[in-house]
């Protein structure tokens, strides 16, 4: 049981970080990015290719993060342009359709060119015992990186003026404009950040379990569920929801089975919408 919970925490931290990108992009720009998982997978393939080309791992990982950020920027500059002209429900719907198209395109391309491509980052050394449970070094390294990233995000949003400006757009876009903040610049920044975070999750995930070209849909699904449970535009909520759902998922997968655990997660998301529509830490408007 403790082993399951620890595994769940490792997974949950990553879920949470995946959801951060998705939830911030939605909170800032009313854009729901269904290509989030495919962006992560594409970045993982960049890392795998760079490694295969003989680059050291830190450089390959750096290229992967860069690729993630670049994909966010490209989304902003191309496919999301028509979305920005719309408001409200139409905007969300068009963003859903267009990014779904992107997800198919990216996955189709990767499947065509690199059907057997996969990223697996092995971290050597024996297991480390935590609370009596032997944990792989890869899982620990992945969790440490993810936690450090969360800490950096909290500091950024709390103590830098740019971070506060991003939050202000989520809270009141008109208020932000009246103090001289360009909402679209903040959205672009956060799209790039969400791409980098997706890449980071793909890389750290590969330290735990291989990422292949078909992992995109499940990554997007997990990110969406965590986003819904955590509340839109809420970093702390994403972390908390990621941890809870990660543990639920690991325990359920062990006790009942992997397919059922996904259904349980979806059920948890549905229950959250019914009972706390603004998410775990959300405040009702």
């Amino acid at each position, binding site marked *: 049981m403790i082993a399951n919970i620890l595994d769940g925490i490792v997974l949950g931290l990553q879920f949470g970080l995946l959801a951060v990108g998705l939830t911030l992009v939605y909170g800032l720009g009313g854009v729901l990015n269904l290509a989030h998982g495919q962006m992560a997978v594409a970045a993982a393939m960049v890392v795998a290719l760079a490694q295969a080309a003989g680059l050291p791992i830190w450089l390959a990982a750096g290229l992967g993060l860069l690729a993630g950020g670049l994909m966010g920027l490209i989304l902003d500059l191309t496919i999301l342009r028509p979305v920005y002209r719309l408001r409200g429900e139409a905007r969300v719907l068009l963003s859903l359709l267009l990014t779904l198209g992107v997800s198919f395109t990216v996955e189709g391309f990767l499947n065509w060119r690199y059907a057997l491509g996969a990223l697996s980052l092995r971290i050597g050394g024996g297991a480390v015992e935590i609370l009596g449970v032997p944990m792989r070094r890869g899982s620990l390294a992945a969790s440490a990186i993810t936690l450090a990233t969360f800490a950096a995000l909290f500091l950024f949003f709390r103590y830098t003026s740019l971070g506060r400006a991003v939050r202000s757009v989520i809270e009141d876009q008109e*208020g932000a404009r*009246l103090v001289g903040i360009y909402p679209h610049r903040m959205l672009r920044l956060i799209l790039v950040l969400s791409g980098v975070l997706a890449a980071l999750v793909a890389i750290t995930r590969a330290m735990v379990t291989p990422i292949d070209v078909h992992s995109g849909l499940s990554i997007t699904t997990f990110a969406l569920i965590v986003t819904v449970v955590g509340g839109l535009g809420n970093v702390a909520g994403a972390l908390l929801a990621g941890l809870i759902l990660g543990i639920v998922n690991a325990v359920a997968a062990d006790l009942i089975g992997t397919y059922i655990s996904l259904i349980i997660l979806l059920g948890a998301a549905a229950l959250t919408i019914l009972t706390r529509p603004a998410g775990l830490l959300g405040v009702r408007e």
Partner: protein
Amino acid sequence: MLEVAGFSAGYQGNDVLHAVAFRVDAGEAVMIIGSNGAGKTTLFRAMCGLLSPSAGQVRFEGNDITRLPAERIARLGLRFVSAERHLFPRMTVQENLLLGAYPHRPDPQTLSTVLELFPRLAERRRQHAGTMSGGEQQMLAVGRALMSKPRLLVLDEPSTGLAPLLAQATYKALRVLRKQGLTVLVAEQQVPLAMAFSDRGYVLENGFIRLQGTTAELAAHPGIRSAYLGVT
């Protein structure tokens, strides 16, 4: 400093403002008075870039700012305090104030001036803006605008939703700012409050400027006395 000419604006093609013209000189306090629905808010929203005007021109310190986006206009030093305030409710008073200076580094001197002007804000620095009373939120909205050291402060109905004492306190703070040399343009339907504060004024009725003059001239005008000051 501010010149508005032939300015028309409205919603869905229906103008509610018709060729409005007025000006504000540096150092002045100017009021635009009119009843609810006269078009004051539409005028300010279109002037400050939140709404696209259908005709006319706005010049600010010699530059044409017509149709510039609100965020550009704010950075030029024309700060609009909306009647809805548009604070950041889940951010602290302090964070709201600091954001007022964005993208510049907040000036500690300006911050202490603002906190001196509104001691309530100093007491509530760590509190979330959304949990404050209407009067405190109004102070914060003005304080946030001041953090940018604006050239011109534009206020839409600063007395809205405030008890009489708080509304008077707001105007008291505005008078202090005037003495420090700030140029202020205010729209108000509580005319006596605005009159006690302004040098000049314009009367907006059904989207037209009907009258203009110094505060003394307007206060003596029989139409104003009966319609807005309750004197017959």
